[in-house]
């Protein structure tokens, strides 16, 4: 049973068909890439998988369970977490607090307990803080744990977003252009980090990216979208030489 099974996913905005009949399956432990020129509909696919948009037709199954049209927080609760193309951190909050909010998903105590500050709430808060600190250490952010997240440099902000996503203990991570705006060294570090997420933590990762080299080096399976439609699928070597892909990115062959 695939971790993520997308079938005939289609969405229309008014007269515009943004995504047309896209299907792919992601297996446990895959490093999966979703690429395509600008406007191909990649983020829209993410939005449909995570419940931000409701597809016009088609279905999304997570571990065999139908999740089409569920609200984003339910999808997150089931084990799919995403990052955003334009980093969306909780700016006024500190780095640690950002990650704790991710960990909060798996909390148990009630509102009443929090309001009256009973021992279960205290202990749980501390537990979540520790969990968050551990994650920050993994992502090499523990030295800025108390800093305001909006004050961090760009690369650290991206790492923080991934740390926050990891704190929700997802099974499937969706990363939307995680390498955007990074220099080659940072990109290489990011590659290593993402690979660690799979190798050490057993996560399955789906990545949207523009940087071809990044995707070819990192991903083991790649789906290519153009104008909302799927034009190729396969391992990096096959995609690299696929004429339709080359045409989509570079235009008609001379």
């Amino acid at each position: 049973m695939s971790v993520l099974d997308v079938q005939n996913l289609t969405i229309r905005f008014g007269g515009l068909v943004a995504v047309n009949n896209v299907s792919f399956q992601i297996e446990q432990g895959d490093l999966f890439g979703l690429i395509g020129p600008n406007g191909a509909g990649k983020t829209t696919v993410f939005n449909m998988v995570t419940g931000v948009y409701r597809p016009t037709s088609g279905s999304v199954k997570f571990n065999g369970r139908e999740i089409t049209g569920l609200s984003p927080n339910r999808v997150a609760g089931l084990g799919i977490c995403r990052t955003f193309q334009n980093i969306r951190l909780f700016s006024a909050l500190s780095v640690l607090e950002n990650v704790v909010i991710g960990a909060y998903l798996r909390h148990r105590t009630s509102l009443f307990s929090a309001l009256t500050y009973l021992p279960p709430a205290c202990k749980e808060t501390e537990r979540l803080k520790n969990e968050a600190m551990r994650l920050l250490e993994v992502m090499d952010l523990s030295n800025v744990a108390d800093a305001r997240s909006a004050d961090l440099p760009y690369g650290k902000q991206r790492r923080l977003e991934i740390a926050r996503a990891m704190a929700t203990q997802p099974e499937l991570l969706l990363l939307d252009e995680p390498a955007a705006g990074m220099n080659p060294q940072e990109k290489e570090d990011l590659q290593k980090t993402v690979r660690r997420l799979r190798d050490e933590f057993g996560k399955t990762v789906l990545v949207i990216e523009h940087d071809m080299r990044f995707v070819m080096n990192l991903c083991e399976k790649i789906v290519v979208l153009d104008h909302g439609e799927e034009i190729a699928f396969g391992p990096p070597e096959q995609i690299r030489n696929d004429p339709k892909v080359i045409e989509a990115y570079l235009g008609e062959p001379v």
Partner: protein
Amino acid sequence: MAATPAPVASVLDSAKFHAGRFWTARFSSFAVVGLALYAFHNFVTPNLGIYDVRLIVLAFLFGTLAVSLNLINGITGQFSIGHAAFYLIGAITAGKLTVTFYKTGIVQMPGTLWLLVMVFAGAAAAAVAGLIVGLPSLRLRGDYLAVATLGFGEIVNVIQRNQDGGKQSIAGLDLGGAYGLQGVPKLTEIWFVLLLFIVTVALTRNLITCAHGLSFLAVREDELAADATGVNATRTKVTAFILGAAIAGMAGALYAHYNGSVPPDDFKMDTSFILVAMVVIGGTGSITGAAAAGITLKLLEEGLRKVPAIPAIDLYALILLAIAAFAGYRALARRRKLNLDGKLRPIWVTLGSILCVFVVWLGYKNYGSDLSWVLKVAAWVFMALLLACILSTSSRVAYLARFGFFGFCLALIVLAKPLVAGPLRGIEPVVELVGQTTYRAADLRWAIFSLALVFVMIIRPQGVFGHHEFSWTFVKRFFAGRVGEGASA
């Protein structure tokens, strides 16, 4: 903005949990509060005049209301400007139940116990209203939500005004109509109001210190990201509305039983706007800020009622002088003739500070006799706190210099007033127009208040405390930032 990340006064200030320390702290704080309230009730309350009682009750009720509104607006980031509706619903529910059941003797129980029940009744009714208002927040954002809440507030007010048991009432319901519910037994004691305030601040602070509270902040910061991270944004928003409304309902119940009646004029749009102003001036998101602003502004509003009248010509003279002083300051500053940042000689600083004190004393002498001692105490506390804050920062010299200069200007304006007012009286058309008018402070205070409101918003739109709570780190950064570059945070 700092180049390296500056530490934030972290919400997660909770210390490591230790059962022994936890329960000792708990019980001792209960004991302290209980003793304090008991002592207050037995030693202070009997000595208070009616006016003093009114000041304290209203100040702390509004402090409570401000904190409850802050939960919705500041902590959860919603835009609710109809908060007086929840206050009203709590007051009217509690009042009506009391008049129907307690006053008529149907239910027999000690007054304070009944009041406690009524407080919860008010909270429940207001909570239902909070749910009703909160649900549309699913679909509405920002300005639209604001206007919807404003509309709700007005609808509630109008409905209440029309329930006089007569033709236009719904099912003949009598809530007192345009004059409001009358004859509510005055069961509220001051200590109850103080207790509600303390409980409200404690509850809110507990919420923020727990991981649970972070979900509210997350919704404020970025709702979409919060949803993606597993926070049920909808449920969080509705919960915030329900909680904020319930607390306001409790305050309303207490007010009804203090005032003896529930006049609809006390719950108009104005009240909602004042509450929002309190939250914004204190700093949206700051419990300390909301509480402090609520208490302070209400004390000011009530206290200023008693200030004596001022002849129109004197007022215009003062305004002209103030404008002249401001313009003069700007001109001098532009030409760099005036450098206030630490380079003044101590003699000027001292002189200026003395002048400041002199002006304050002058005001006290002229107007102080009429003011309630509550206000005097509050004013002294405020000035002492301000002085402590200034002295505890490294840029104290610069600040003392600034206050000294400010005091000098104030003294100049007040002392020069007769010099300007005299000639003004000589100008014919002026005398003809306004010679006889006196402005009563009761009317003036709103004009001044609104102007001050605009002024504060322009200077510091994020409020005094911004997102932060009170802490010495905050004080240092607040004052340090002002003297150096512009303040951030």
